[in-house]
């Protein structure tokens, strides 16, 4: 430790040194521990097919979580993602009932997600309204439109080829959703950590005014982030609708808070400005392992949610508590 030095070292701190004490390492330890505990607790856990089935517990939510993570890093939030899924799924159902073929149905789903994202983005970036309240509003609006369209009816009878997204396998036990999840993780990881767009997202999350004063088109970036979240919700809508083989307006209710939980557990600061995609990937896997492991023991969902809630607080609290007690 020195006084502020007159000569600045001619290199950056090595990334490896930083990784060692990072959040992601902690999560990895948690994930491995839970994996081992699960393997000990239930004889059914270490079955590739079961693990493959279990991946459905998190893949759709995680797809959205990647886009949501970027949004939260930028200091915004989208609570309407579950509602976007409902609306996109409803739109797909309408397209199907009007005789659209499989590619068209998928396009409609993605397009609806995009439009919903654009609507949120326009209100937040265009009119400058706070995103948390805008999306509380659009959460009712989007799902409300689904109710208007569907009422108490349901869309069923999607073409058999459509089932591929949510029920198909690419190779052996590797599901289509798992592949989409992996691709999304890669794309968003590169986007956030390796591109100048990602850098501007961090800048905005840390100080949006200064970012604007640095020549960054802050509102455009925000708008794009809402679009991305909308599209990823559309992708999740395709997967979920395909998996359920039907659409009802109540589809995906409560998704938003689970997605936010994954993002936060992944170490993304809810106040914006920091967080990583690998963290989100690990968090999604941890959540999937916890719910599946407890499910195998027939623990009721609500008790699982206690565990998830405790995990969420505990993973953040314990390191802070330890460092507090040390000093």
């Amino acid at each position, binding site marked *: 430790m020195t006084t502020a030095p007159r000569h600045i070292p001619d290199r950056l701190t090595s990334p490896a040194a930083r990784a060692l004490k990072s959040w992601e390492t902690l999560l990895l330890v948690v994930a491995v521990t839970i994996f081992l505990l699960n393997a000990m607790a239930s004889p059914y856990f270490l079955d590739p097919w079961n693990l493959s089935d279990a991946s459905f517990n998190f893949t759709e939510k995680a797809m959205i979580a990647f886009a949501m993570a970027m949004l939260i890093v930028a200091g915004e939030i989208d609570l309407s993602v579950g509602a976007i899924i409902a609306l996109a799924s409803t739109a797909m159902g309408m397209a199907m009932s009007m005789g659209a073929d499989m590619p068209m149905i998928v396009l409609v789903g993605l397009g609806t997600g995009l439009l919903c994202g654009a609507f949120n983005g326009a209100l937040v970036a265009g009119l400058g309204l706070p995103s948390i309240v805008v999306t509380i509003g659009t959460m009712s609006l989007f799902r409300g439109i689904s109710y208007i369209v569907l009422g108490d009816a349901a869309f069923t009878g999607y073409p058999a080829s459509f089932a591929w997204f949510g029920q198909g396998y690419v190779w052996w036990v590797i599901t289509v959703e798992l592949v989409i999840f992996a691709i999304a993780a890669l794309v968003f990881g590169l986007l956030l950590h390796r591109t100048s767009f990602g850098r501007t997202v961090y800048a905005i999350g840390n100080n949006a005014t200064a970012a604007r004063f640095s020549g960054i088109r802050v509102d455009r970036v925000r708008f794009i982030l809402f679009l991305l979240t909308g599209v990823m919700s559309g992708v999740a809508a395709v997967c979920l609708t395909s998996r359920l083989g039907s659409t*009802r307006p109540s589809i995906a209710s409560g998704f938003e808070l689970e997605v936010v939980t994954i993002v936060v557990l992944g170490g993304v600061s809810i106040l914006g400005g920091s967080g990583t995609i690998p963290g989100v990937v690990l968090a999604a896997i941890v959540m999937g392992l916890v719910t599946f492991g407890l499910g195998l023991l027939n623990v*009721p*969902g609500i008790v699982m949610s206690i565990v998830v809630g405790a995990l969420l607080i505990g993973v953040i609290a314990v390191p802070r508590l330890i460092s507090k007690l040390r000093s």
Partner: protein
Amino acid sequence: ETVRIALVAKALGIGFFEAAAKGAEEAAAELGDVEIIYTGPTDTTAEGQIEVLNSLIAQRVDAIAVSANDTDALVPTLKRAMERGITVISWDSGVAPEGRQMHLNPSSAPLIGNTIIKLAADHLPDGGQVAVLSATSTSTNQNTWIAEMQKVMGDYPNIEVVATVYGDDLADKSYREAQGLMQSYPDLDAIIAPTSVGIVAAAQAVTDAGKVGQVNVTGLGLPSEMAGHVKSGASKSFAIWNPIDLGYSAAMIAHALATDAATAEPGATISIGRMGEVVLDENGEAAMADPFTYDASNIDEFSSIF
């Protein structure tokens, strides 16, 4: 070898399903060598139920008997269960035929549809206005019963169904919807709530509005929950089948199918122990028994049982 039968509720904690679970345990005790796994999601969503089903499939249970939150959404998952050699039946609230081997109706849908309107009409000799307070708009059995009720409305020419509202099986929402009904239709004579949550909330709303005697609440409910309202007069009568019997029968059928003692095909007859037997129709559905009506004369007898 123990036969493991999973009894999946729409959601945990609802009295009706807890009673059904009791019945299933009774069947298990009778059959011996049967383990009942009573489970379900925490809230009444299809996604939650699918997660539960996935973990049951992973445990390779022998049979799944499910009361579905969604007719269609469970189908792909249940199909996978059947592919992995698990016997799948639905009970109470059914799934589409391709997602199960057979469906056990608590009673026949036309009979229930007729019963609920008859319960209201019996106390309205001069006719009048009635409204329906349902559960969620996606609830299969509710919608079937209401549709069946509409079919027989011709038999009750003086009765007018003025509205159908949805309380989502939430006590407060049902309460507010019932209030809204009385507000919008000042001359309302009866509220039909074919759901155990809705009927209690509606009776409470009628009591609070001081309209006991003017608005009769009826429909399907549990005697234990309705006892007070029958005594106060808010509800003159209501009906229900015995959920213990229903759970018992579902477990019996699941066991029979899982052990190949019976096959699920149209026309097949399956024995359900003390409840006798059921016959499958061309859709693979069977009805357990007639709904039973409760009123001031018999409520005390049953309110302590379920």
